[in-house]
């Protein structure tokens, strides 16, 4: 058993670990009650699964062919950068379009912060109008 065989086995075990993490995220996306918690399952563990399996493919090609695939490394970096951004953007869109939280959630701090900011702006506007009136 030489070193290349060991690296091949390590790559295959990385791929299987990625598959298991992907099934964990599938269980999360089918069991959790809410779009926000579901995005927590879908973005984090799915990203980990993809990173593990792409790293396994990279190691396998290096062990079999002595081929360092720059495109695979670029894919790893791209997925690692863009998957959390996509999850954040889609959840912000969900909250702004008014998707309700699950009934068991404890509170919505983003909604409270939005309302406090709206009240502050509504309080500030009449003062400005008064100032401009007194100037005129």
């Amino acid at each position, binding site marked *: 058993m030489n070193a290349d065989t060991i690296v091949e086995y390590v790559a295959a075990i990385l791929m299987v670990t990625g*598959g298991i993490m*992907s*099934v964990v995220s599938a269980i999360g996306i089918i069991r959790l009650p809410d779009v926000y918690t579901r995005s927590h399952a879908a973005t984090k563990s799915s990203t980990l*699964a993809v990173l593990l399996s792409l790293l*396994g*493919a990279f190691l396998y090609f290096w062990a079999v062919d002595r*081929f360092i695939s720059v495109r695979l490394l670029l894919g790893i970096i791209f997925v690692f950068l863009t998957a959390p951004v*996509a999850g954040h953007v889609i959840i912000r869109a969900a909250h702004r*379009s008014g998707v309700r939280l699950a009934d068991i959630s404890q509170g919505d701090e983003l909604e409270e912060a939005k309302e406090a900011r709206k009240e502050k702006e509504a309080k500030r506007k009449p003062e400005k109008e008064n100032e401009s009136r007194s100037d005129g």
Partner: protein
Amino acid sequence: MVKILMLISLVLFSFTILIAVYRIIKGPSKPDRVIALDMIGVNLLASIAVVSCILLTKAFMEVILILGILSFIGTIAFSKYIERGIIVERRHNR
């Protein structure tokens, strides 16, 4: 043995894609469906990497990159549509 492990991981990824399809059909709101679509794209990318290891070919590397970029852009466009009801804004008078 290595090939059997790769086939096992391929089966696990396709199981995840099946469950995401269920969430797309059933999902109560629009962002649920978009999240499941993003998840399908990401898992398809991983399974393409495993398939290219099984077949020992380097022809699918571009497919991995292009699929990642298309999935990201699709998610961004869908979220902008859900948030504002329009994707490409013509006027810039903010």
